[in-house]
């Protein structure tokens, strides 16, 4: 029981820290801003979610009992991460000037990144 509990905690902590590191690594590795936006907003919420679940389990079995208050932070982060990503992408679109024409076809069917978006290399 104790060994499997520790194993579960170690797996959760490993997943969480790995995803947090992956988000920050994508932040410095990718080339343009709209690519960089993908990494942290998804990976960091996943990483913090795993770490918070590990904290709930740790405080339940090694601390003062079951207080699932960390789930509050998790719900709040999961609600606010898409909103803040949307606001940041709107900010960078406003810096690019006006919105591109035919905005309904923004996802290119050929999978190529449009030139006017991708010329903002770091």
């Amino acid at each position: 029981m104790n060994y499997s509990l520790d194993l579960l905690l170690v797996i959760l902590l490993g997943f969480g820290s790995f995803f947090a590191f992956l988000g920050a690594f994508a932040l410095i590795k990718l080339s343009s801003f709209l690519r960089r936006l993908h990494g942290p907003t998804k990976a960091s919420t996943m990483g913090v979610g795993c770490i918070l679940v590990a904290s709930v389990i740790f405080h339940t079995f090694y601390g003062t009992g079951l207080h699932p208050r960390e789930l509050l932070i998790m719900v709040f982060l999961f609600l606010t991460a898409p909103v803040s990503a949307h606001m940041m992408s709107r900010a960078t679109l406003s810096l690019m000037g006006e919105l591109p024409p035919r905005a309904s076809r923004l996802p290119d069917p050929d999978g190529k990144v449009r030139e006017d978006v991708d010329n903002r290399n770091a």
Partner: protein
Amino acid sequence: MIQIAILLALSVVGVAMLLSLWRLLRGPTAPDRILALDTLYVNAVAQLILFGMVLDSEIYFEVALIIAMLGFFGTVVLSKYVIRRDIVE
């Protein structure tokens, strides 16, 4: 075993915070810096939760909750400033 795992997770999340700090200092445009600050506060929440696990204390929960709420408002307000060049309209 669990203490070693928590310390390793602390150091990995610390490295992630350093990487996002690099992007915050270097970032060529303003949305890059906003995104780096967003990643930095999310990682700070994780770091505080892990620190509370190391010390076996539950005080750091409130700190993490307040950082999460104020960080979200900071991101939204900075993005609004970049869009409109004004915060209070």
